């Protein structure tokens, strides 16, 4: 479509090309869908493959590509700490890049508060809220709690006796438990919340009746609801939902309305044009039939809210999450007594001393000093250090060549040239394998312009 791609050059950070694309984008904005808005767009999921953010990114990838909005959408996973690692890296190293988006959402707000992240969602440029999922309070069919009133009566009488099972601490499920407690006049601090790391683990605990009541995304209960394996006590939506035979929280006098929303943001430092161009691409995506089709398949709600309205909404949600998490005590008591950690550290010290004594005694009995060659070790150490230090600036291929060659030198003194040729071959070959065959981008550094 444009001169750059005809020439077969993959562009990323070239300003000339970006300017020409920009001109093109303003042209295509009038007839959206006729031509791709982007040649390449990276979608960063701040989580490992398999979770909700990863799925959002991959569903966007499909919709953008099939609707002809982006020629090559690329998904990158940057997992860790409820998305805050991905957010921090995004705000830091993607600054000013107009061809990248980060998937984010309510759970990231929770992560920001619990992990005391210095970077918040407000540091990124808001593009849009995309989807939402209502949550459900559910029990297995055999549970003594027939209705929400049964559960809440028991909860009010003895809050700690009710265990609430759900996803990670600080996540949407715990936030909802806190909101419900506050709404019925129980101190959120007294919610006996049992957090599980994965959705599957939580679901198994709920189905098996290991916890008194479970909180999870409504879609994750879908198969169980259809099969009659769980009883939904309440849903967190404003109105009753079609296909779910359960009241809303509000309907039963619990003044809480809640949804787990997911959104996308752009990096700071982009120009107004770049922002408009990203927003236009997303706008075209949410209007495409491909996107609507995918939403239905995954049972996600269309919660499209663009630009500044989304920013206002996100700010209000952040205040709400911060307040309830403070009351839940999720980020309060630091440095409390930790008997398990003390036990482990004491054991480590004790057996460390015992092992040291054992080693010394053996050496005294049979002084067979192991002759170590230090030169090879130094070479490998240097290779590793250079590899880590050079990967960002000079790119993976150079860094891996250096590592391979120095490791080979450690074992060998005779064939420096052969080793160098093999080093370059292995580095370039594995780069090609990862970056092209497996679609896992590696740092390109100074070589970026040619790859």
């Amino acid at each position, binding site marked *: 479509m444009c001169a750059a791609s005809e020439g077969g050059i993959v562009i990323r950070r070239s300003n000339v090309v970006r300017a020409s694309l920009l001109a093109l984008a303003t042209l295509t904005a009038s007839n959206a869908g006729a031509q791709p808005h982007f040649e390449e767009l990276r979608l960063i999921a701040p989580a490992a*493959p*398999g*979770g909700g953010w990863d799925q959002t990114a*991959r569903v966007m990838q*499909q919709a953008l*590509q099939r609707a002809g909005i982006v020629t090559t959408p690329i998904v*990158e996973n940057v997992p*860790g*700490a409820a998305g*805050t*690692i991905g957010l*921090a890296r995004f705000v830091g190293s993607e600054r000013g890049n107009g061809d990248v988006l980060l998937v984010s959402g309510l759970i990231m707000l929770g992560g920001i508060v*619990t*992990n005391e992240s210095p970077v918040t969602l407000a540091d990124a440029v808001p593009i849009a809220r995309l989807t939402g999922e209502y949550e459900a309070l559910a029990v297995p069919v055999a549970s003594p709690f027939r209705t929400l009133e049964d559960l809440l009566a028991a909860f009010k009488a003895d809050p700690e006796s009710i265990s609430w099972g759900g996803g990670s*601490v600080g996540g949407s499920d715990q936030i909802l438990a806190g909101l419900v407690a506050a709404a019925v006049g129980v101190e959120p601090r007294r919610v006996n919340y*049992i*957090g599980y*790391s994965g*959705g*599957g*683990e939580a*679901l198994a605990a709920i*189905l*098996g*009746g290991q916890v008194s009541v479970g909180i999870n995304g409504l879609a*994750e209960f879908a*198969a*169980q609801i*259809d099969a009659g*394996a769980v009883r939904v006590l309440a849903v967190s939506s404003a109105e009753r939902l079609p296909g779910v035979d359960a009241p809303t929280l509000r309907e039963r006098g619990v003044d809480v309305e809640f949804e787990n929303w997911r959104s996308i943001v752009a990096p700071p430092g982009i120009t107004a044009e770049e922002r408009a161009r990203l927003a236009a691409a997303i706008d075209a995506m949410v209007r495409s039939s491909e996107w609507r089709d995918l939403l239905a*398949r995954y049972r996600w709600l269309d919660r499209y809210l663009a630009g500044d309205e989304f920013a206002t909404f996100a700010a209000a949600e952040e205040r709400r999450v911060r307040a309830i998490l403070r009351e839940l005590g*999720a980020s309060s008591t*630091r440095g409390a007594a930790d008997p398990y*950690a003390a036990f*482990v550290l004491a*054991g*480590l010290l004790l*057996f460390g001393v*015992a*092992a040291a*004594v*054992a*080693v010394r005694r053996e050496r005294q009995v049979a002084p067979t000093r*192991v002759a*170590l*060659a230090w030169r090879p*070790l130094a070479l490998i150490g240097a290779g*590793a250090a250079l590899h880590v230090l050079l990967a960002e600036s000079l790119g993976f291929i150079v860094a*891996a060549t250096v*590592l*391979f060659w120095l*490791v*080979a*030198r450690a*074992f060998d003194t005779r064939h420096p040239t052969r080793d160098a040729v093999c080093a370059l071959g*292995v*580095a370039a070959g*594995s780069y090609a394998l990862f970056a092209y065959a*497996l679609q*896992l981008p590696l740092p390109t550094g100074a070589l970026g312009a040619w790859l």
Partner: protein
Amino acid sequence: MGTLDGLAYGFANALTLPNLLWALLGTTLGTAIGVLPGIGPALTVAVLLPVTFGLDPVSAFIMFGGIYYGAMYGGSTTSILLNTPGETGAIATAIDGHQMARNGRGAAALTTAALGSFVAGTIATLALALFAPALASVALEFGPAEYFALAIVAFAAVTALLGPSLARGLFSLFLGLALGLVGIDQLTGQARFSFGIPQLLDGIDVVILVIGLFAVGETLHQAARRSRDETAPVQLTTFMGMSRDEWRRSWKPWLRGTAIGFPLGVLPMGGSVIPTFLSYFAEKRLSAHPDEFGHGAIEGVAGPEAANNASTAGVLVPLLTLGVPSSATAAILLAAFQQYGLQPGPLLFSTRPDLVWTLIASLLIGNVMLLVLNLPLARVWARVMFLPKPLLFGGVLVLASLGVYTLNRSLLDVGLLYAVGALGFAMRVLGIPLVPAVLGLVLGPMAEQQFRRAAAISEGDLTVFATRPISAALLAAAALILIAPLLLKRRRRAPHE
């Protein structure tokens, strides 16, 4: 639909030429990613998911099944040949598999791993077809108390792996436990021992510890020794790479590994560390020559490899019957089902038996395909050992760095890898065993979290561990594992006195 009818229908549906090609593609891809350290089936299926959108669901699932099973096959290869397990499920294999390779029995180790995986995969897939719904309801009986008790059983089994020096073995174990403390405490959301480094909030990835201790540590150790021991030449004179004696010693561990791995895979706790190490422990205890373990006992390869594959098949039980994904790969397979408008759960077996049986048939086909692919490859792979050492170890470290980088796309992790590698080198020089540290890192957080979860649910009443029958039985088993060897030793000694 009856079982036989179902299987017949499934095979009729799956056995078409295009589907066989998809199975071949999936198993080849799966084996390849299994060989690469750090890259698992989860990432591969996630990357391929959009590509398969145009396919019909049957073809897509045949390919995914091939990737899923294939990755478990591939993982054993680097373990055995290079002492570099790329996945946690392949650590137990490395202990005796690599010793076999150094004794010139690399092809035999690879063959018993491939055959064991085949036997386990086939039996476990059939068990999945026959008993899935019943097994799933038993799995739901497992709560925090039971998982804690299971972790204690695994800890008891670790005692068999502490090595000749108790002090060193326990030091290694506690080192692993201490590393397991790092990161966010799942019950309170508090960060522990993360020293303000955000990348440490999710804890130390066990893959980094494994690749660092084994691959990097091994490379440093080999480089630093002045006298380089040479690898014995491969003996390829026997049937399919295994001697008659090795066949005789392999088949029981395959079956026992399957029996251990499948039920543990069904439990929605994830991970193949516990099944593989319990299998290793069982083989060592049942063996007539336990002193061979650690020096190249084929049972120590056959059992854990079978357990690994059987537990992989077991993971499909909660996924298909409950819609509960208990591993990252299972979560992506769940998404793949949803992409086709299918909802795994209690109704899947009754509403879409056609799909379930086709999937089961295609898993069985994929298993045969893997055997066909891997048996001839075993001899080829075994020759990797004879690459010039400079090139071999250069390649190992480049792949190790890459694999670890792709985990979190973090260079800090790569730095951590080499720090752990230095630790692994020091441990080798001082004669400290490596395996207890890995098990400590895996089992410690599991035991702690499940203990505290159980205590929180029971409001601090610790009698739950004794009053819940499964938990009590498991704890009794753990006690037996610890005490039985002492009693046996005393009885054996008694006649001499």
